[in-house]
C-alpha cells in the first residue's frame, strides 16, 4: 500500500512541470502557425490601422515570453482567461464542452473494451480456425477504416434511414440521460471501431502467449478446467497489458473525437481546440491543452495504480 501511495505522490508531483512544459510547447507551436488573430478580430471592417489598434488592445504585440508568462500566472491562480475571439470565459467553455467529449470517449472505451476483449479471447482460444482468421481479418479492416467515413455511413443508414438514432448534437447527461446516450451512440461506435480492432489483435496475441506458457500447462496437467484456466488465470495474467492498452487508446479516442465531433455536430473539446487553433485563439487552446494534459496524466496514474494492485511487481517501476 505504501508503495502505491508513493507512486501516486510521485506522479502528482510531476504534474506541474509537465503542464508547464506541454503548454509552453503548444504556445510556441501556435506562434509558428501563420496568421494573425488581430486580422480575424477586425473582420469585414479590417483596415491596417484597425488591425494595429486591435493588436495593442489585446496585448498581441507583447513579446512572446511575456504573453506566455502572463497566461501562466493567471492559470496558476485558476483563471484561464477569455477567448480572444468571443470573450467567453475559457473555463466556462471547457466545463460545458468537456462532458460531451468525455461521454463519447468513455462510451467508446466501454464498447471497445467489451467487444474487443471478447473478440480477442474468441480468436485466442480457437487459434488456426476459420473464426480466428475472420476475426484477425476484421481487426485489420477496423484499423484501416477511416472513422469519418464510417461515421457518415452510420448516420446515413441508422439515423437518416432507419431513424433509430438522432443525427446530430448532444444532450446533457444529468438532465436527460437517455437522450444523452442515444445521441452519443453512433459517435461512440464510430470511434470505437479502431480501438476494437487494436484491442482484439493485442488481446489475442497476449492471450495466446500466456495460454502456451509452462505455468498454464502445469495447471491443465493438474486437471483444472479450461474455463477456470482461461478466466481465472489466463485473463488475470494479461490484465496489466490490457489496462496499459486501454490507457493508451484513450489518447487515440481524444484525437479521433475531433473528427467525429465535426460529423455529428457535437459541442465537445475536440472541435473546440481544432477551431481555436486554426484561428490562433491561444487562451482557448492553452486552456484545453492544460485540461487534457491533466486528464491523460490522471488516466495513466489510474492505470499504473490498478496495475500495481493487480500485479505488485508493477509498483516497482
Amino acid at each position, binding site marked *: 500500500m505504501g508503495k502505491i501511495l508513493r507512486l501516486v505522490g510521485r506522479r502528482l508531483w510531476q504534474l506541474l512541470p509537465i503542464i508547464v512544459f506541454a503548454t509552453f510547447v503548444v504556445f510556441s507551436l501556435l506562434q509558428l502557425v*501563420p*496568421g*494573425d488573430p488581430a*486580422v*480575424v*478580430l*477586425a*473582420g*469585414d*471592417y*479590417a*483596415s*491596417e490601422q*484597425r*488591425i494595429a*489598434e486591435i493588436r495593442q*488592445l489585446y496585448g498581441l504585440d507583447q513579446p512572446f515570453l511575456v504573453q506566455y508568462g502572463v497566461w501562466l500566472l493567471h492559470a496558476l491562480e485558476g483563471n484561464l482567461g477569455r*477567448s480572444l*475571439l*468571443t*470573450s*467567453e470565459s475559457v473555463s466556462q*467553455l471547457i466545463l*460545458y*464542452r468537456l462532458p460531451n467529449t468525455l461521454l463519447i470517449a468513455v462510451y467508446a472505451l466501454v464498447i471497445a473494451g467489451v467487444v474487443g476483449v471478447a473478440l480477442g479471447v474468441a480468436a485466442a482460444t480457437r487459434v488456426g480456425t476459420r473464426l480466428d482468421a475472420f476475426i484477425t481479418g476484421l481487426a485489420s479492416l477496423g484499423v484501416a477504416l477511416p472513422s469519418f467515413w464510417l461515421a457518415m455511413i452510420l*448516420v446515413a443508414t441508422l*439515423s*437518416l434511414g432507419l431513424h433509430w438514432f*438522432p*443525427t*446530430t*448534437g448532444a444532450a446533457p447527461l444529468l438532465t436527460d440521460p437517455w437522450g444523452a446516450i442515444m445521441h452519443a451512440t453512433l459517435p461512440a461506435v464510430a470511434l470505437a471501431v479502431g480501438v476494437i480492432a487494436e484491442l482484439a489483435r493485442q488481446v489475442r496475441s497476449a492471450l495466446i502467449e500466456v495460454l502456451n506458457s509452462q505455468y498454464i500447462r502445469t495447471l491443465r496437467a493438474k486437471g483444472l478446467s479450461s474455463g477456470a484456466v482461461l478466466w481465472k488465470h489466463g485473463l488475470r495474467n494479461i490484465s496489466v497489458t490490457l489496462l496499459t492498452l486501454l490507457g493508451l487508446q484513450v489518447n487515440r479516442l481524444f484525437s479521433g473525437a475531433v473528427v467525429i465531433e*465535426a*460529423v*455529428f*455536430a457535437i*459541442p465537445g473539446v475536440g*472541435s*473546440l481546440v481544432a*477551431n481555436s487553433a*486554426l*484561428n490562433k485563439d491561444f487562451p482557448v487552446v492553452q486552456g484545453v491543452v492544460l485540461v487534457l494534459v491533466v486528464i491523460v496524466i490522471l488516466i495513466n496514474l489510474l492505470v499504473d495504480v490498478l496495475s500495481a494492485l493487480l500485479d505488485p511487481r508493477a509498483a516497482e517501476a
Partner: protein
Amino acid sequence: MSNDIDLLRLDRRRVMQATAAAAGALLLPGTSFAEDAPRKGGTLRVAMPYNPGSVDPMTGRNLTDFNVLYGVFDALVDFEPLTLELKPGLAKSWKFADLKTLVLELQEGVTFHDGSPFNADAVKFNLDRYKNDPRSNVKSDLSSVESVEVNAPNKVTIRLNKPNVGLPVILTNRVGLMVSPKSIQEKGPNVDRNPVGTGPFKFVSWQDNDSFVLNRNENYWKPGLPYLDALNMRIISELNTVVRTVTAGECDVALNLQPQQKVVADRAGGVVTKVFPSLVPYLAFINYGRPPLDNLQVRQALNYAINRDEINKVAALGLGQPSSTILSKAHWACDPETVNYYTYDPAKAKKLLADAGHPDGIDIETIGWADQTAMQRQEIIISQLAKVGIRIKLTPLSPQQAVQAFMIDKKGAMFISPSSPFADPSQFYENLFGKDALRNAGRVELPGFRELLDATMDTPDQNARKAAFAKLQRFTVENALSLVQFIAPAIGVMSGKVQNYKDGLPATPKFTEVWLSA
C-alpha cells in the same frame, strides 16, 4: 325532436359530400387546409455554420452575425430585402435639411428589452459609442459624422463634416442598431455576449459554437409581431451536417449555405430550398500598384480570358449570376450595361497581352483559399487563364492568413476570394478601390476615381445618385480594377412548415415575420 336528430345524423350521403368538398379544396392550387393567416406560436429551430464572434454590433466582424443581430436589435432605418428600398425603422422618417445635416424623427413608445426607453438620448449614446469607443470596429462607417444633437426626445440631428447621402443606408447596418445604454452602463463596456436591444426577440443564452436561444419580445413595438415564440439557433460548422439537421427534421431552417448544399437537400427531398441573389461578388482582388498588374492591358486580358458562365456552372452550380462588375444586376445602383462588359474572348486576351509586351505569356503570383470548394473554383480559373498564356502560381491559405498575406504583407499580385458586401454602394467602392482601403493592396487610387466617388455622395436625389454610380461603375470596370467572376446566390434550406421566410440581397434573413404552420 326528430329535427334535432336529423341535424346530428351523419348519413353516408353527407359524409361523401363533405369529403368531396374537402378533396376538391385540396386540389385547387394555392389553397390548403393549413391557415393562410399567420399563426402565432412555435419555436423555429435554425441551423447555421458560423459562430458570431460577438453580438455587440460594435465589435462584431462578419456578415453572418446579422442572423442574430437583426433578431435582438432594430436598426434606425429598415429595408426591403429584395430591392434594398429603404423603409422606416426605429426612425420613422429622415430628411436631409442640407447636404451636411440629417434629421431623424424617431418612433415613440419603444422600450428596450430591459425596460429602459428608446429615445434621442439613446440614439446619441449609440452613435457616439460606435464612433469613439476604442473597441469599435465600425468607426469608418461614421467617418463623415461630426456630431449628434438631441433636439427633442424623438428628434435627432446628425451633423456631417462632408456630404454623405449614403448615411441613411449605412444606418440600416451595424451603426444603426440601437443597443440599450442602460445595459452598457450596468454590465460594463464589454457587452459582446449580453445583447439588449429593442428587437422582436430577447437574448436568452449563447453557448459558443453551439447554440443561441432567443425568446419572443412580448412588448415589441410592431403590433402583432413576432409570430414565433422563440428562436433556437444551432451552430454547426460542417455545411453538409447543417443540411442534414433539416432533412432529418431536427431543425426547420438552414442558413448561409453554399450551392453544393442545394444539391444535397434536393436529393434528400422533403425540404424547400430557396435561392436569392446576394450582394457577395466572387472576384480576385488585384494589386494594381505595381507590376505586372499595374498595366491596364494585362488586367483587361485577365477579364477577357475567363469564361464566367463556365465558372458559374461549376463553382456555383449555375445558381450565381456571372458578372463583370461587383454589383448584382438586381441592385439599384448597378448599370446593367456593365454586367457583361467583358465577354469571353481568349483571342482578344492574347492580343492584349502581346500589346502589353508579353507575347509569350506572363506569370502571376496569386493567393487563394485552401478549402475544397475554393480549390475547385481556383483550378477552373487557372486552367482558363493558362489557355491564353497567363500562368497562375497559386498559394492556397486559410482565409485570415490569406488576408494577412495579400492585404498586409503585400504578397502576390492577385487574391482570389469572395468580397464581403457593404450596405451603401459608395462604401463598396471605397473599401475596394480607395487609397486607404485594406483590400486595395496597392494603396493606389487611379486618377479620376475620387471625383467620381465623391459625386455619388453629394446628391440626395436617388436618380442623380444612380447616374453618378453608373459612371463610377463604368470607370472601375473599364479599368479592370478587379477580376469579378460571378455574384453568389444566397441559399437557404427549410422544412415546408416555415412560412414567409424572406431573404434578399444583403443575405441577412430576418425572422420578425416568419411563422410556422401547424
